[in-house]
């Protein structure tokens, strides 16, 4: 009698999975998972790490076979022998790590499954078909068909994957954490594409950790916990963030960020300072410093050059210039061993490639950096057994499992082990690059605690994160990096995710806005500024001309701390007066009406004032031009 209930307007399910289970030997990855996907809907598939989301996606897309349960597809039972079978039936998986052939062209990759069909292929026809597909996605000109896939960005590769799925006319597309390595603009574009696919009547599943994105794109939500479906096919709009987290973890975890109470007395002297670091092509001019007991966040978009800067400091990339000081003394860090000896620790971004030694045991992985730091002939494991035992107990890792393989543990535990590897060396400074990437929410909280405890004990911590919520919750101070340049250094308390996103905005707008400021300052002989304003709070992003406004780039100030408090408070259509100064503030917005900050012109009383309308239309013209360019 389903036809009479409230869901009567929805299409019949394209795919239903009932009581699907999957065991890997004695490990039960899926116990009883249900999933329903309908044409014209996006279903968010959620769950903590290890809940079975990826296993379920891989079963539905034919990559692995289920142990039990039933899957119906288009009204008939679905049995898949391989991913090829699934593609043949119209089921595609767009995975986190793409399955493209890097040496082949975009065109060849899109039609890779077709290459296996017998007969001659007409490349001219394929080319036509590919342009058509990309046009349908609204990306005809973004993707050169003859480019080798290896030169593409993560977002472009994903586009190729999607086009590949469409070339087979996939009716069901599963996106497995598609946004993990995308910038916010790229995420917007992906969501545009997903909306188009949905409107086309395809069924989509969206696997993600990021709740904001789930709310933005999905119609329904299915939540897994420990291999079981907890919530199935519920309208996204009826759930709150709290509901979802509760269903995912099975308990209220409250806020995962336990605020750290830090007083001035807890923060010591500056232990680490980097000035004018240049490591082309990614790092152009970066400066920052961190004090003992302080957690410093490096915020910015993926690809802003933060990871590259850390690798350059660590001696893994060549530096062109820059001064690196540890406790006030310049240290020449030429290779990682130099940095280790100088008292630094570095948890790199890519755990598998840069940190884990897969053939060594957990114990040996823990001891690796200690072995690098201390000169000795023996490996010295015995001498440090006590310290290892104490540290391991704190990680929640049973001491009798130290001799097992690293690869047997979840990403979260591996990350804790790698952090412990560096804590064992007694560093003064610990640098962590995306420390919670691929780590479930529960383990995240314990990593935060681990870092906060270490900072409480006097360690200077530098955290790089593209998760701004995490950065704001963890760090006391945030240095914002945009396109290889440090552009602001602010207390975290003054920032919100929105402000941070604006500060980290990519170069095209920054350069254009700076050019605009220079032009306005020259033309009118005034002080031109670009400032984010929220009530009394201001953060200046760029400034040109004589310093009349009291706003300085990269500095946060309250209105009364500047020379133009009246102007900041009123922000009217006409000039505002502050003693001898006249100021006009014009807001910039993007096409969705998001605040991009205020362009301010401050004049001395004796300078002639240009028409306010002229300035406003000039600023508006610039933002429109930017929209078209991106």
């Amino acid at each position, binding site marked *: 009698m389903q036809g009479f209930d409230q869901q009567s307007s929805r299409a019949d399910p394209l795919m239903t999975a009932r009581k699907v289970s999957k065991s890997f030997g004695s490990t039960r990855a899926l116990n009883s998972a249900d999933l329903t996907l309908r044409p014209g809907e996006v279903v968010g598939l959620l769950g903590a790490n290890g809940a079975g989301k990826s296993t379920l996606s891989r079963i539905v897309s034919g990559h692995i076979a289920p142990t039990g349960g039933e899957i119906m597809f288009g009204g008939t039972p679905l049995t898949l022998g391989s991913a090829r079978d699934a593609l043949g039936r119209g089921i595609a998986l767009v995975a986190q790590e793409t399955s493209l052939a890097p040496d082949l062209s975009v065109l060849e990759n899109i039609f890779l499954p077709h290459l296996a069909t017998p007969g001659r292929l007409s490349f001219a026809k394929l080319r036509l078909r590919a342009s058509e597909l990309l046009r349908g996605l609204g990306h005809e000109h973004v993707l050169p068909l003859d480019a080798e896939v290896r030169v593409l960005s993560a977002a472009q590769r994903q586009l190729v994957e999607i086009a590949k799925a469409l070339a087979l006319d996939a009716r069901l597309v599963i996106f497995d954490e598609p946004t993990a390595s995308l910038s916010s603009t790229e995420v917007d574009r992906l969501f545009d594409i997903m909306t188009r696919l949905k409107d086309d009547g395809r069924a989509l599943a969206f696997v993600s950790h990021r709740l904001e994105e789930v709310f933005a794109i999905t119609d329904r939500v299915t939540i897994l916990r420990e291999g079981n479906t907890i919530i199935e096919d519920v309208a996204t709009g009826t759930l709150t963030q709290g509901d979802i987290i509760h269903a995912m973890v099975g308990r209220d975890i409250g806020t995962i960020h336990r605020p750290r109470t830090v007083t001035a007395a807890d923060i010591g002297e500056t232990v680490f300072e980097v000035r004018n670091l240049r490591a082309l092509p990614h790092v152009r001019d970066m400066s920052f410093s961190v004090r003992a007991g302080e957690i410093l966040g490096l915020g910015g978009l993926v690809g802003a050059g933060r990871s590259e800067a850390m690798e350059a400091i660590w001696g893994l990339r060549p530096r062109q210039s820059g001064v690196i000081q540890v406790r006030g003394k310049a240290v020449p860090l030429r290779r990682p061993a130099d940095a280790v000896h100088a008292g630094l620790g570095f948890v790199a971004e890519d755990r598998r490639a840069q940190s884990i030694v897969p053939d060594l045991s957990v114990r040996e992985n823990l001891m690796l950096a200690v072995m690098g730091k201390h000169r000795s002939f023996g490996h010295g494991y015995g001498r440090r057994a006590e310290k290892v035992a104490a540290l391991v107990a704190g990680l929640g890792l049973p001491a009798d*499992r130290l001799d097992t393989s690293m690869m047997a543990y979840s990403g979260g535990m591996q990350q804790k082990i790698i952090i412990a590897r560096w804590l064992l060396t007694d560093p003064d400074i610990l640098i962590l690059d995306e420390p919670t990437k691929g780590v479930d929410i529960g383990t995240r909280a314990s990593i935060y605690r681990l870092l906060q405890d270490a900072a409480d004990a006097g360690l200077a911590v530098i955290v790089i994160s593209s998760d701004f919520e995490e950065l704001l919750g963890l760090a006391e101070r945030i240095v914002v990096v945009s396109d290889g340049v440090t552009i602001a250094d602010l207390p975290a308390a003054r920032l919100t995710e929105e402000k941070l996103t604006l500060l980290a905005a990519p170069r095209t707008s920054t350069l254009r806005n700076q050019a605009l400021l220079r032009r306005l300052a020259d033309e009118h002989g005034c002080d031109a500024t670009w400032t984010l304003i929220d009530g009394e709070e201001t953060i200046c992003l760029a400034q040109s001309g004589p310093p009349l406004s009291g706003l300085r780039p990269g500095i946060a100030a309250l209105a009364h701390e500047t020379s133009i408090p009246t102007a900041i408070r009123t922000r009217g259509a006409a000039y505002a007066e502050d003693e001898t100064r006249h100021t006009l503030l014009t807001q910039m917005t993007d096409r969705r009406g998001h605040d991009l900050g205020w362009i301010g012109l401050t004049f001395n009383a004796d300078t002639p004032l240009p028409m306010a309308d002229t300035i406003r239309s000039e600023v508006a013209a610039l933002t429109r031009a930017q929209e078209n360019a991106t």
Partner: protein
Amino acid sequence: MTDSTAPTRANPLIGILRSLEFRMFCLALILGILLSLSSPFFLTERNIFNILDQSVVIGIVAVGMTFVILTGGIDLSVGAVFGLTGIVLAQSLQIMPIPLAIPLAIAAGATIGLLSGVLVAAFGLAPFVVTLGIMAIARSLSFIFSGQRSISGLPPDLDAIVYSTFLGIPANVLFLIALYILAWAYLTYTKGGRTIYAVGSNMEAAQAAGLSTMFYSILPYVISGALAAVAVTFSLAQVMSADPMAGNGLELDAIAAVVIGGASLFGGRGSIVGTLLGVLIMVMIRNGLNLMGVSPFWQGTAIGTIIILALLAERLVNWRAARR
């Protein structure tokens, strides 16, 4: 998907039973039983010493090869270096005493290894290609230094390093045992040994952890070159003549022994105990086939089959483990 379940508690006995070395040990045992059943001479004391004696040269070279393969490299030049350092030793013995000539030959072997190591580790060249080049050079030089003929007339005292005995065990076998104990202890208990494993398993991680990856990437090639010279010293002491073609194909025997012993050619996995078993398995097959009167031309087929079967068995075991 990451597996959230923790692994089961490690039981040391089960660990040993599950280890690759144990399976190789069983293989060697089965092989020994089969051969002793098919030939009454196989298990005689004389033949056992014979097997150990035949293991000396390949066994010594295989130690160096293990070090190189653990870092993810390969040394194709050991056979040619064996030949060249043999000529260097024989020529030196014409003009200087034994205690000077032997270190000189070993130093020559180490130097050639250093060259390979630097080209591989510092210049980032592919080990396969570098050592292939060194192999050609070394073989060519051994013809030039020898005048294209075997060099005989070596001092008779030289055979003392083979034929003197201690507790009834010949010196060369004693040396082999000592070398394996030393290499095992080095690879298991020292910083250098663990670094070699780490370099082969994940070079980037080892470097980022502050280990001296460059040094420990070069060292194995130096050891391999030096041990090739040590091996030729024992060989010369037995045959009392140096042939410029000596050691032809020795590199393949050494690689085979290491691979049968369970080492991964990608580096990071393997052990000195495994290599020893690999050496013994290979020598036993040769010896057994000889005793049974099988044409020596069949030996290659037998050894090749064993290598492939060993790898196949390992792959099947790994598949099963991966599916668990």
